[in-house]
Structure formats: C-alpha cells, structure tokens
C-alpha cells in the first residue's frame, strides 16, 4: 500500500475547501478505501466540525509533530465508516508550530497504512498552505464562479506549477446554473478558458451542504439523493481512476440556446 496524498487548496477563503475535503474523504471511505483527512488550518480548525468529530479530539497534528503522542493516537476514527480517520489541527497554536518537513514526515508515516491522505489547506498562500503543498502528490484547486476566487485560483496554480506539484485539478463549487444562463455568472467554459487546467468536478450551490454542516454529517452520507451528493461521489470516483461523465447542471441553458436559435432564425 502506498498512500496518495491529495491537497485541497483555493487561495481565497471560504470557497469550500473543508466541505470538499470532508465529502471526498467520506465518499472514498464509503467506497471501501482507507482514508485519513488532515486539517492543516492550525489555529482555525473546522474539518472536525464538518465531519462531526469535534467531541472526540484528544491529540492533534501539533502533538504528533512535537512528539507528545504517536501518530495513531491523534487519528480519530469516524465510527460510521470502516476506515476513515481525521487528524485535527491544533486550535491554540499558530501556523509556525508545523513546518513543511513535518508534513512530509507525517505523510510518510501514513504511507503504508492508508490509500488516501487528504490535506485541507487554510486560506492564503503562506505557512499553512506551504505545509500542505509540500507532501502533495496531487493538488485540487477549489474555486467559485466569481472574479476574486478565480483570480486567487490562478495564483495557486502558478505556485504549484513553480513547485512542480502542478498542473493541479480544478473543482468549481457553488455553481448557479440559472445565473449562468442569464449571463451573470462565469460558465464552466469561461473558467477553463482562463485557468487552463483540468476540470475534475462541478458542485452546484446546494442548501443541503449547509444543512449537512449544521449536523456534522457530510452530504455524501445523506439517504436522499441531491445534486451536491452526486457531484462529490463523481469526483471521488474520478480521483480513484474511474472517469465518470460530468452531470449536466445547465439543462436550462440548452433550452435557452435553442430558443435563441429559434428567435434569431432568418435574421
């Protein structure tokens, strides 16, 4: 076994890194993989809350790095799945408590124990981000379809290419098909034109994500199907080497195109 280390980044804050990490880690665990998710946001941890494991924290990432516990002791097992673990960030320390070399060492120790290691980046391009990039085999860049997050994604892509971790794969989160069809939101093609990297997933704006964050139960565990759940499951499959086709979230747009063609006929 040799774990694949996947880092989830974005540059801009609040675009959905933690949501993506929790759901992809959970989806792969539900598909029978051994998965560890590590919160690299030292001082502002949240992955524990989104995964519903906040009450079970004893040790954290900084305890491992500073030798206060063994790796295994800081791995919180998610009992709802056979093989899903979380390593939480320290809440009362700052970013400098962990170095990029520390992260490489931690991921190295996990190498023979699991199939996937997910690293949830903090916002920004400083310490915590650099820590999470260092051990990465693959970097996911999350963006929203709006100017500032696409611009920051471009910056991240530049950095990961310079560090030879590139080219990176793109997740577009919080897509609103009706705004796109009105021409008031970047389309998928617009974003791919600008960023020129491979697309690995599209997640629509979905209230279920907020509900699931409230409950500490990632949407991929919902009994009911939702667009977001389907989107995350598809991305997990793609990461695992099954190139499932993209869902069509913009059916309305096609209808509109047809109407346009009809309206401008014979012009």
């Amino acid at each position, binding site marked *: 076994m040799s774990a694949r280390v996947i880092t989830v980044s974005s540059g801009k804050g609040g675009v959905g890194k933690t949501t993506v990490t929790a759901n992809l880690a959970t989806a792969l665990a539900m598909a029978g993989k051994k998965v560890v998710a590590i919160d690299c946001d030292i001082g502002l941890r949240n992955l524990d809350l989104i995964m519903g494991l906040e009450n079970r924290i004893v040790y954290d990432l900084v305890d491992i790095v500073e030798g206060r516990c063994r790796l295994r002791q800081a791995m919180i097992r998610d009992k709802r799945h056979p093989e899903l673990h979380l390593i939480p960030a320290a809440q009362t320390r700052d970013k400098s408590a962990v170095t990029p070399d520390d992260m490489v060492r931690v991921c190295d120790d996990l190498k023979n124990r699991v199939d996937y290691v997910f690293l949830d980046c903090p916002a920004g391009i400083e310490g915590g981000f650099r820590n999470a990039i260092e051990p990465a085999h693959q970097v996911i860049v999350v963006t929203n379809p*709006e*100017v500032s997050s*696409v*611009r920051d994604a*471009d*910056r991240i892509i*530049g950095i990961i290419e310079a560090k030879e971790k590139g*080219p990176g794969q793109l997740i577009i989160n919080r897509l609103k098909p009706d705004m*796109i069809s*009105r*021409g*008031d*939101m*970047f*389309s998928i093609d*617009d974003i791919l*034109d*600008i960023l*020129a*990297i491979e697309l690995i997933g599209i997640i629509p704006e979905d209230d279920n994500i907020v509900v699931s964050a409230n409950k500490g139960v990632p949407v991929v565990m919902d009994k009911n199907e939702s667009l977001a759940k389907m989107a995350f499951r598809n991305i997990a499959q793609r990461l695992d080497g099954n190139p499932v086709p993209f869902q069509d979230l913009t059916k309305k747009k096609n209808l*509109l195109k047809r*109407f*346009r063609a009809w*309206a*401008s006929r014979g012009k």
Partner: protein
Amino acid sequence: MGWFRNILNPKSHQSASVAKNRLQMVLSHDRFNISPQLIEEIKDDIIAIFVDRFSIDADAVEIHITRTPTESRLVAEIPILTPSRHRIARRAKRN
C-alpha cells in the same frame, strides 16, 4: 423588455463577459508582471501601426494573454471595419 433583448443578444453586456475581460486583464499583470499601463501603451502602438494601412475599429482593439497548459501567448484582437461599417464610420466622422 430588457430580458428579451438579453435572450436575443447573448454576449453583449452581461456581467459575466465583462468579468471575463476584466479578469483577463488583471491576470496578465499577475502572471507576467505586465502592468495595465504597458498593455495600454502596446495597444496605442498597435493602433498606430494599422491605422493608416487598414480601416480598423480602434476603440475595440483588445490585448490579453491567454494560457494553455503548455504555452502562453500575447493575443491582439484588431477588428477590421467591414466596407459598409467603414462607410458609416467615415460618414459619421464627416458630420
């Protein structure tokens, strides 16, 4: 009737295409350290090259840097006035 015009005229002034143009400009700067000022200067130079030789639409000249995974290129778009639009433009100038 704004919505109806929008449907018939998809690209014109919708905020997404405005955003795309603006973003492409700032990214030229972010990626290659080319300032908007320099882009404007290049634009003026290009217009100067063409203006006596072709009928171009100087106001609509656009310059940006496109990127694919393997290369980046500086792209200048210089709309040439079609004969009829040219005539209209000339007539407009005369008046």
